[in-house]
């Protein structure tokens, strides 16, 4: 198992390197520079700015000095907020987005797995349709619609919960977490229902039943382990994708998270910030894909036994 993790971590190095390189050159091909504004920038001012950010050098020189900076832990100042280092901005937004994503994922898993498993137990009956329909709400109501709806209902009309901020007022984390989680709940529910049905027809489940095990044991200890593999495969990229996906929720609820930086950076052509967040995202993706692969292995008895058998 450790060997497996090491190899995957080693593979991450070229992945991240390719991502950095591709992003570095791609963003410079996008029209519009970081200093373009409605009023044209006076040429001498523009030259001064370009000199300050090394944009007057050749692309390769810039690239080399950027990589060199990375090794020193220096991602450079943001172009949009030049008084701040990119790594500081990421550090300020990351804990918030990570917390938001974690709560959202909890919501998604709680709602989704329960709905999916219950539905899979008696397919094509009311016990299937009702929980699945409830779980579907998150897909039928996209985030930009569910968020304002919750705000209007619980924040404005009932006045139960705060409608903005993160950690400023008690309870202000509830609505954003539900909003972001709802979208994923539907996916989790669908995938776990499908996965459970797949597993429930497997031979080993039949064997377990034939052995006279109570249905509850069969479901929770045996079927869920294998049946939730598609969910776990989905979770890796999903959690990494939260970074980009949380942008809408962060905007609706006025949350100072990383998602806003990530999306705004692209629109602002904030080269260093795009690179910084992208590098960060790629690390997340590698880590979470690895994690979800490990989980899937742990949950799939066959894969797991082969790993341990091999060692």
């Amino acid at each position, binding site marked *: 198992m450790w060997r497996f993790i090491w190899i995957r971590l080693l593979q991450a190095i070229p992945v991240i390197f390719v991502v950095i390189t591709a992003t570095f050159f791609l963003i410079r091909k996008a029209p*519009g520079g970081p200093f373009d504004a409605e009023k044209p920038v006076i040429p001498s001012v523009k030259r001064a700015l370009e000199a*300050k950010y090394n944009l007057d050098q050749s692309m390769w020189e810039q690239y080399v000095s950027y990589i060199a900076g990375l090794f020193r832990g220096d991602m450079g100042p943001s172009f949009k907020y030049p008084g701040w280092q990119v790594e500081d901005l990421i550090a300020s937004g990351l804990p918030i987005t990570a917390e938001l994503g974690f709560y959202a994922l909890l919501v998604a898993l709680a709602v989704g797995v329960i709905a999916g498993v219950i539905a899979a137990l008696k397919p094509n009956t009311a016990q299937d349709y009702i929980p699945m329909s409830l779980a579907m709400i998150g897909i039928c109501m996209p985030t930009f619609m569910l968020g304002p709806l919750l705000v209007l209902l619980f924040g404005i009309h009932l006045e139960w919960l705060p409608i903005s901020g993160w950690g400023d007022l008690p309870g202000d984390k509830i609505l954003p977490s539900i909003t972001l989680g709802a979208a994923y709940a539907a996916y989790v529910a669908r995938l776990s229902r499908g996965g459970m049905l797949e597993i429930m027809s497997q031979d080993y489940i039949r064997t377990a039943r034939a052995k006279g095990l109570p249905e509850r*044991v069969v479901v929770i200890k045996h079927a869920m382990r294998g049946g939730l593999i598609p969910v776990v495969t989905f979770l890796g990229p999903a959690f990494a994708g939260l970074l980009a996906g949380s942008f809408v929720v962060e905007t609706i609820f006025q949350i100072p998270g990383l998602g806003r930086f990530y999306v705004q950076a692209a629109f602002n052509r904030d080269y260093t910030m795009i690179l910084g967040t992208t590098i960060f995202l790629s690390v997340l993706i590698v880590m979470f894909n690895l994690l979800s692969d490990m989980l899937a292995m742990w949950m799939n008895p066959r894969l797991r036994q082969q790993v341990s058998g091999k060692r």
Partner: protein
Amino acid sequence: MTIVRSISAFVDHNPIYYSNGFINIEINMPIKLAGIIVLLLASTIAACGTQESNVDSGNRDGILHFGNGTEVQGLDPHVVTGVPENHLMYALFEGLVNKNPYTLEVEPGVAESWTVSEDGRVYEFVFRETAKWSNGEPVTAKDFEWSWWRALQPALGSQYVFMYFPIKNAEAFFREEIKDFSQVGIKALSDNILRIELANPTPYFLQLIDHYSMFAVHRATIEAHGKASDSYTQWTRPENFIGNGMFVLDEWSLNRHITVSRNENYWDIDKVKLNGIKFYPIDSLTTEERMFRAGQLHRTENIPIERIAWYRDNMPELLHIAAYNGTYFYRVNTRREPFGDVRVRRALAMTINRDLLIASVLDGIVTPSYSITPPGILGYQPPTLFKYDPEGARALLVDAGFPNGNGFPKIELQFNTSDQHRKIGVAIQQMWKKELNIDIVLQNRDWKVYLDNESTANFDLSRAGWIGDYVDPNTFLDMWITDGGVNRTGWGDPEFDRLMLIEAPKAAGRDARFAKFNAAESLLMKNMPILPIYTYSSKHLIHESVRGMPSNVMDHYNYKYMSLQAKPAEIAQKDEMQAEGGE
């Protein structure tokens, strides 16, 4: 092998689950979960049901909660641009003069008084003895001399440096044609006298020095964190910050808020009634409006158009809409056919039913515009050379060779992505289709691509807007000189250039000057390189407890005039509650 062993492994290790039947899972789990969720919700709701809103606590503590659009790029007055920054600059700094928010007349600031020479070219500002930095040091004429020298450093990258150009040799110094700063018309004669010499008499010069790009900064603080010409150094961080405004910087939390509090060293602090301001960067208009409704903000930067009718019907006293010093228009690329033909440009302008557009899509909050300059700036009235006339427009198109739109090429109208630009485009697209039978493709672009297309003349029609930098028609007209930086239409006329660059600056007196402007603007509108649509409005929601925040054409605030007063009824209620609590 694998299957059987794995199952027996599970069973061996987990002998606990056997007693309950299957049914329990089906029923118990959702019920239990629902119970837990309800409990959790109920406990949080109980915890926050009694929360005091920002507006209530702000009214009590004298803190203004201020919706401020987007996050500021920085807090250095010589470097920043933009409206959110503007709001902060006037809180943290003070120029030689201030503006009265009711009349927009100039009031003394750091300068107690000033004199103007007879030819209007030399200003002498007398500094106030009591003007101080937030660390208690006096603000002197030398501070301004050094600050203005700094602003003219090309390496600093000040985007508003053109504000200085009326000053003698300032532009030459900025362009490094003159190295010696003593040749520039900026001179501190003593600690409290600043002498400014202009190249030409500039009637709006006092309006310029109220702009934040001409504020002074604290030399020792800046030099402690880098060279004078370094932009965005650490000196604007709360722990280092020194200013001379009514407030000092307390906290700067990116994408969350910026808080400022009273500067006790400010010379006129007795007149300042607010204890502090909290500025919130809020990207989404709808979020901002909901925060206002939930009592989180005293004032919003904007209002979604769709919400205006509701406020008008239900809470008209909170709605503040006023004419704003800006014009919304479409740029026409005259280098591209068929727009080389002035008849085509005029036909398009004449087929926009501005009244109907404004009444339907813009909720009637703006006024139609038939020229580039907003009407009534300092009494200046722009010419109106055309009106809504589809009949006449069709005749023009026939002359231009496109009877009933036949043979008219498919042209594109680009706009930067925004709901409002889209709506206006959709309405106008249909007007042109209906009246002229020509097809326009609407294309939204992200802001940077849009700018790139405009500056490289890669467009047919392009949505645009212009907000005046100061209160004078000049700010709307000098941009249209041949190949001017923001002209971008390809249109140019030597006569227009002559009127704007030579005749108007030399004209004696406001009337003569405005006559030249009018002649120039008539020339512009006869040639129609732009299609004017409407004059902007500023629109804000302002809580009733806020006093001294009047609407004006510059959307300018002077925090010295502001105060927070809870409504009498609220105060009464509060007193009552306190009395009850005391018993």
